[in-house]
């Protein structure tokens, strides 16, 4: 039995906006075991980043968070004082953000910023912290590490900065890393290198990894399990091969039809589309959130809240009343949704 690192049950996040209350995250549940990579995938505004921030307790002050369970290795993260939380954050769980330029402090050297977390959380001296920083910089593939420690963020390229963010997240040997679009700002070649490194470290250090992205290619290649979010809800979750080879929710299927897949999509052919727009999350949505954009919608879809139900396989869940009636063929952008 593998060790449970993160448990999220019925997590809800709402934000006051001028027109009412924005229900950004509407009761999502998932878990991460040690050594697992769970990808949360969805488009802008689906609530994936707020989910990450709410686990780290880094939500904006005006945001409201509730959850029936939110635990890191069995220890509750709800009802914890700010002081206790800051002992956990950066220590037992760490976060890697999208744009390393904005998450590194331009006024401090790389060395200062790397050592800070360790000096704050562990009973170590500066010497030990420095040694660990050099060790980790070398581990993430940075040459001349002792010189890098004296440099400032602006002197480094985007790829190097993201490597430093990874090293920083590893400083205290966390149980869980949450990476929010860690490679979106990087070139494809650097992206592959960074993800390769992240996957390798995750295996080597046996951590839990939550990776948040909109890129289905990344998800397919790195995820143990996938959580697909749409308009504040989980619409489908399950093992990666299930989600990609036999997606059951019309939204997941639609997403896969939208992207050109070499060898599967006809070159120059028409790509699938998802018509319409994401519904407003201010106020209450009656029935299925995807109903207005779904090609398979029937009246019953709008009748009431659609529960997440057991899918085709263990650990596979779908929020769609018609998923069992949908054809089982693989999504094929060429003509399937023309």
């Amino acid at each position, binding site marked *: 039995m593998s060790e449970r690192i993160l448990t999220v049950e019925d997590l809800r996040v709402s934000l006051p906006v001028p027109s009412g209350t924005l229900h950004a995250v509407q009761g999502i549940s998932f878990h991460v075991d040690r050594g697992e990579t769970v990808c949360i995938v969805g*488009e*802008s505004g689906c609530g994936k980043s707020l989910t990450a921030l709410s686990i780290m307790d880094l939500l904006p002050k005006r945001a409201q968070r509730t959850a029936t369970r939110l635990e890191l290795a069995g220890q509750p993260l709800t009802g914890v004082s700010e002081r206790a939380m800051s002992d956990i954050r950066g220590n037992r769980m760490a976060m890697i953000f999208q744009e390393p330029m904005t998450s590194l402090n331009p006024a401090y050297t790389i060395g200062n910023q790397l050592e800070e977390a360790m000096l704050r959380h562990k009973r170590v001296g500066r010497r030990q912290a420095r040694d660990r920083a050099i060790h980790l910089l070398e581990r993430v*593939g*940075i*040459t001349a590490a002792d010189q890098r420690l004296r440099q400032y963020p602006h002197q480094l*390229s*985007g*790829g*190097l900065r993201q*490597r430093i963010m990874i090293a920083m997240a590893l400083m205290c040997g966390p149980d869980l890393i949450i990476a929010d679009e860690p490679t979106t700002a990087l*070139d*494809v*070649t*650097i*992206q*592959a*290198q960074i*993800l*390769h490194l992240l*996957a390798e470290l995750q295996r080597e250090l046996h951590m839990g990894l939550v990776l948040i992205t*909109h*890129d*289905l*290619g*990344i*998800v*397919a*290649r*790195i*995820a143990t399990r996938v959580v697909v979010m749409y308009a504040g809800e989980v619409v489908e979750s399950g093992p*990666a*091969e299930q*989600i*990609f*080879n036999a997606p059951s929710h019309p939204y997941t299927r*639609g*997403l*896969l*039809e*939208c*992207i*050109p*897949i*070499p*060898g599967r*999509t006809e*070159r*120059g052919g*028409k*790509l*699938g*589309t*998802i018509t319409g*727009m994401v519904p407003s999350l201010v106020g209450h949505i009656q029935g299925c959130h995807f109903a207005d954009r779904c090609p398979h919608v029937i009246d019953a879809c709008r009748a009431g809240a659609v529960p997440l139900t057991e899918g085709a396989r263990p650990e596979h869940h779908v929020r769609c009343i018609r998923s069992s009636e949908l054809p089982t063929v693989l999504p094929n*952008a060429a003509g399937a949704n023309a």
Partner: protein
Amino acid sequence: MTATSSLAQTPAPGTPMLEAVDVAKTFQVSQGFMRGKKPLHAVNGVSLTVRQGEVLGLVGESGCGKTTLARMLLGLLDTTSGAIRIGGQPIAGLKRRDVARLVQPVFQDPYSSLNPRKSIGTIISLPLRVQGDGDEASWRKRVEEIMEMVGLARRLYDNYPSQLSGGQRQRVAIARALINKPRIVICDEPTSALDVSVQSQILNLLQELRRELGLTYLLISHNLAVVEHMADRVAVMYLGRIVEEASTATLFDTPRHPYTQALLKSVLTPEPGLGIPDTHLGAAYPNPLQMPPGCRFHPRCAQRLSQCDKIEPHPLRQADGFVECHLYQEPQT
């Protein structure tokens, strides 16, 4: 108006529409206060031809010079050496306005490329105003026609960019580019800022417009799956040079240059179980101020030969393009 009158009719397919002949751009970069300037060779001897009706994909990492090249092709930046020809005529002899009639850009970020204080109608009709199109009475009708063509509801005419979604904004940018019926559209990362479901709509739209209006595209993108889907031919750029050019099928099926091979390897297709590839590229993209001697790719190349750090390779003709790499050249005697 010689520039436009010679292109009044759609040229025959295959006619060279946009040509760069041995184009170079060198910037003088300051090294800091009281220190001298150093030349940065952003584009270093690039030749390429975009033909009527085709989509030429241009790929490469950030800093390789693709955007500098695009700006020179748009006439927004002078070349240091070499020539650019639009519809067979040297760009140097054309007025900015005439260039704009023939070549139009669509940029990456529809959030920053539209003036937030102008209404959609004003934004789309601006090129008509700039070109001094006299028939003002017809402007609104023409704007509404082009809006319809790119899939924007007419009722958005008086709205502002902030009221539109990212996909709608990119449609506005496309409508603005097309209102004067240009021949060539340079799309610089047209969908990088968009969600995947919106990206597919914009890509479909660009394809439809190309067929309907007989347009020619230069598509600059780092998303190789998008380039493979859209382009007829692909040019791969590295540190200011085009290192390989071929038809899309040839380039993606049998990439020759080690850099092209590494680029293709780093594409993450949504196929579970394949894992994250190891590209075998060294971490560092070289500093363009200190260009490596010999082949500029040799410090990162896994298949490097003994002459690679000494002798600069020259373009070698292939079946449907060229490659610039010592692996395919006769050893020097």
